[in-house]
């Protein structure tokens, strides 16, 4: 029977088999204590398959376990480990060290999110914006009638929104958005893409109420199609496309 200590030993990266040593620079900041962000540096051995999250957890385990980092699934599904890696918003578990082409990895908390500590940020605003656009199917008949089955959709109808259902609410799009860099009231690309996801769903009847919500001075019109949100999305959601298609509805194009 394996002991906990054995399991821990098993997960430790072996220095002997390492192909490379990289420097990990972690932004350390506690808003309750610190006035500025400081960077702590660690030398870490990596393999070609090592992810940035592996490196951070290695450091947390062997050098400083006070480092605050949020993670869970390690497979780009939970959307917890979003952070700025070498200047770009990425998922730490989805970014291999080898693909960064650098011996120095700098990790910072996501921009445009309040910092809890170190790499962990608050998601309240993202979730508030997400809830604001009513992220659920709106229909008069919430329960299917006894003599009918589920509400059916054609494959074409499904294609209209399925891409936008992949959103894992990691917040990378909001972190990359140039409007969010200065506008704290902007609803953000995540919520706007989700608004499109439900508006484009053939089962949904809530189009008008959603368009009304986002037709605000800090709503959809504050998107200027810079496309940075789509460039950083780790799930191929392409929020910029959703937002423009949604705006197309409002301009009467579609």
């Amino acid at each position: 029977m394996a002991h906990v200590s054995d399991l821990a030993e098993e997960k430790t990266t072996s220095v002997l088999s390492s192909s490379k040593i990289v420097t990990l620079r972690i932004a350390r900041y506690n808003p309750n204590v610190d006035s500025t962000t400081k960077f702590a540096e660690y030398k870490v051995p990596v393999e070609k398959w090592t992810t940035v999250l592996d490196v951070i957890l290695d450091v947390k385990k062997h050098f400083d376990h006070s480092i605050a980092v949020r993670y869970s699934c390690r497979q780009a599904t939970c959307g917890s480990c979003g952070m700025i890696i070498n200047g770009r918003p990425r998922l730490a578990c989805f970014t291999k060290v080898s693909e960064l082409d650098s011996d120095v990895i700098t990790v910072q908390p996501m921009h445009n999110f309040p910092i809890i500590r170190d790499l962990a940020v608050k998601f309240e605003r993202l979730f508030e914006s997400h809830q604001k656009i009513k992220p659920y199917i709106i229909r008069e008949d919430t329960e299917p009638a006894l003599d009918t089955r589920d509400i059916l959709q054609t494959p074409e109808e499904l294609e209209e929104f399925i891409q936008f259902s992949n959103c894992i609410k990691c917040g990378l799009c909001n972190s990359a958005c140039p409007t969010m860099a200065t506008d704290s009231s902007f609803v953000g690309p995540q919520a706007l893409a989700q608004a499109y996801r439900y508006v484009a769903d053939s089962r949904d009847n809530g189009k008008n109420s959603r368009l009304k919500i986002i037709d605000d001075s800090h709503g959809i019109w504050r998107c200027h199609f810079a496309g940075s949100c789509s460039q950083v999305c780790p799930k191929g959601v392409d929020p910029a496309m959703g937002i423009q298609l949604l705006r197309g509805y409002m301009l009467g194009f579609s």
Partner: protein
Amino acid sequence: MKESHIMKIHYGTALAAVGLVAVHILMRLTQGFAQSLEYESVIANYRFLPYAGLLEIILILLSIHGFNGLRVILLELKQGRRYEKAVSYGCVAGMIGLIGYGTRTIVMTNMGMI
């Protein structure tokens, strides 16, 4: 006013201005750039009613488009109820002021009040 209405006006003024400004610039080029800017030539332009009308429309379109663009940029830079109201009213005031000032030039020159 709903933001969608404001932005439709923003797009509309832009498209209309593109065509009219092109005519305005072509007028300079067809006459010869330096020659078209001579006092007599400019006065003749202003006194020609359709051209004066064109200038007035360009003035209105670009003032609306320009100041709304400025409003958008300023609203995105900083937030807050008082600030946002100040920006919105300030831009409307700027727009009206510029249209008024430009109209004065066009009307007075067109009517020979110089």
